[in-house]
């Protein structure tokens, strides 16, 4: 560990993992936490329990805002464990001088998203701190959900299973970069920020046996696939050309030197199913997003690794993103 915390320690990639393992897990270790799932499974597998904090800049962006994110993020963590989101807490830290009008806009946006999930806010907390102590507004949400599909786990992947993605990847990260001061790109790009429970419910209603499910937030698709490959000790082989990416996202990645599969998403998940379920699952997913796709398969070639196959016959490993996501120089 480095002596001080840097931005890279919050990247959802290698440094973030190191921080969690070497500081938090070291002292908090217990059987539930060590499973390292999106949400903790508690009460004999009946409930899922999770928390998340939101510190995005800018607060309002194309297709969403910090409030929508704060509800989607926590509800999606519950949905990723096959749970229906039910009870949410909402804790806000507000910088002195923040506009009440903007605050109400954000809270209204949270309310809309809660309705989509069928969840309610049952407790909360408000703190106001002197100007400069936080960047405008931070929100923490904690959620409890009722598990409807048991045994979803990142450690359950075995050879032959199929890997799907629920829609095109990288739009949230690309939208945020395009909206940042200094870039100011003209773009029609919108964040993918959305509640995922409706899609998970559709998969469950169609009797798809969900093996693993995870929303590809910070660290993007790369981080999820690497975590699965490691947790299940398998190789995940991906066909690069099958990964759906919008043209505008590709363009922004080209300009800034990023890869879409490393960018954050807020409404995109990766799904592992048995081979015989793949077409049925794809059919269900495509009812919400036509861009959803089968992107790969689980093999035993390089255990613990993600292998990317190009359309011209070359192979490379897909690594966890490292460091702060910074634009390349030339």
């Amino acid at each position, binding site marked *: 560990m480095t002596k001080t915390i840097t931005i890279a320690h919050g990247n959802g990639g290698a440094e973030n993992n190191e921080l969690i393992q070497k500081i938090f897990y070291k002292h908090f270790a217990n059987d539930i936490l060590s499973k390292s799932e999106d949400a903790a499974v508690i009460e004999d597998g009946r409930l899922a329990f999770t928390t998340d904090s939101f510190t995005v800049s800018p607060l309002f962006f194309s297709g969403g805002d910090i409030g929508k994110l704060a509800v989607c993020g926590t509800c999606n963590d519950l949905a990723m464990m096959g749970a229906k989101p039910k009870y949410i807490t909402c804790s806000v830290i507000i910088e002195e001088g923040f506009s009440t009008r903007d605050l109400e806009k954000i809270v209204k946006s949270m309310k809309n998203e809660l309705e989509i999930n069928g969840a309610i806010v049952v407790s909360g907390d408000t703190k106001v701190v002197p100007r400069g102590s936080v960047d405008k507004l931070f929100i923490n949400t904690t959620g409890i959900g009722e598990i409807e599909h048991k045994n979803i786990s990142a450690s359950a992947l075995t050879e032959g299973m199929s890997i799907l993605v629920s829609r095109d990847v990288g739009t949230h990260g690309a939208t945020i970069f395009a909206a940042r001061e*200094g870039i100011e790109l003209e773009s029609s790009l919108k964040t993918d920020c959305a509640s995922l429970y409706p899609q998970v419910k559709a998969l469950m209603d169609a009797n798809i046996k969900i093996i693993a499910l995870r929303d590809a937030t910070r660290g993007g698709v790369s981080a999820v696939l690497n975590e699965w490959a490691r947790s299940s000790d398998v190789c995940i082989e991906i066909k690069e050309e099958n990964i759906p990416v919008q043209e505008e996202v590709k363009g922004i990645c080209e300009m800034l030197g990023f890869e879409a599969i490393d960018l954050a998403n807020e409404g995109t998940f990766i799904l592992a199913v048995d081979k015989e379920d793949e077409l049925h699952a794809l059919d269900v997913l495509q009812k919400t997003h036509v861009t959803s796709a089968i992107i790969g398969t689980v093999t035993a070639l390089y255990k613990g690794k993600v292998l990317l196959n190009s359309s011209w016959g070359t192979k490379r490993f897909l690594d966890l993103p490292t460091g702060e996501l910074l634009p390349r120089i030339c």
Partner: protein
Amino acid sequence: MALELKNLYDDFRDGETIKAYAEIIAKDAKKLKNPINIMEVCGGHTHTIMKFGLPQLMPDNINFIHGPGCPVCIMPKERIDHAYILAMQPDVILVTLGDMIKVPGSHGSLQDARAKGADVRFVYSPMECIKIAQDNLNKKVIFFAIGFETTTPMTAVLVEQVIKQKIPNILFHINHVTVPEVMVELIDSRDVHVDSYNNRIDAFLGPSHVSVISGSKIYDKFPKDYGRPVVVSGFEPVDVMQGISMIVKQFIEERCELEIQYKRVVNHEGNLNAQKLIDTYFEKIDLFRWRGLGNVPESGLKLKDEFAFLDAEVVYKNVLPLAEIEDHKLCICGDILRGMAKPPECTIFGTVCKPTTPIGSCMVSSEGACAAYYKYGNLL
């Protein structure tokens, strides 16, 4: 039809075209009398070659050697220390481009300085410094300028604007370097361990973006005086494959020429306005120390003396140390950059030296040879 970004790269990543070039190269390579070692001078090319797995498509007698062309990798520790020290000065905002923030000096990286409270910002364009300066009139904004011929004109434009608009609070720390001088150094490289010339560079793949500014003319002397063909090539995989194919053809046909693969933008003369702008504000320095390579004559630029009032190295000379700092003893970046070794031949590659804890220059930026090997080719 409006030109979209898509048009700039889509066809240049076409799987069928890449495969077709691989077949042409494989067929032609059978006619070669000797194996050829091609140095891609620029880190952008290294990144493309590794990211798209191009070495896997090459026949055994064609070999890539990775050059020193990454502006972040070549920065010696003492100059990174300058950035760190300047960032820690009271009432200073240190501004630089992307990856530079991650490079460790002897006190730490700029990222570490920021974690300790320094105001360090990265920008997409140097011109953003003007807004930062206007918003912070009680502070000095120091632009830590880095890069090859490609980024130098942008710094020159900022210098021009600072002077024209009489902006009182922007200073420059100039670290701009030039490609042809270091190529000469590499050709002349002597392996100090065995006291012989043993670099294996047979031909160069020249970076297209440098020649967009400087023209292909900067490479005229390499075929003529040094017997090394140069093909100025774009950065997409199809561009690189075509560039390699053009080099192979030169060897078969026993030609030694300067050719342009990237004809869609590059010409022999380059952007004369940009060149004039650079000449207005900058001049060559006698020696610039490259991390891993040492002092290379006339390979760096500085602000001309008449603009010394804008030069942070002059204004802050009392706090900036002059001593050189050597690289880690086990690091063989110098040999890698000279084409004498490949990253996996280094004993600390991937163990002590990783992108998260870089020891040598080639691991520090995503465009460095070691970082590219680590990320894209560590086992395959």
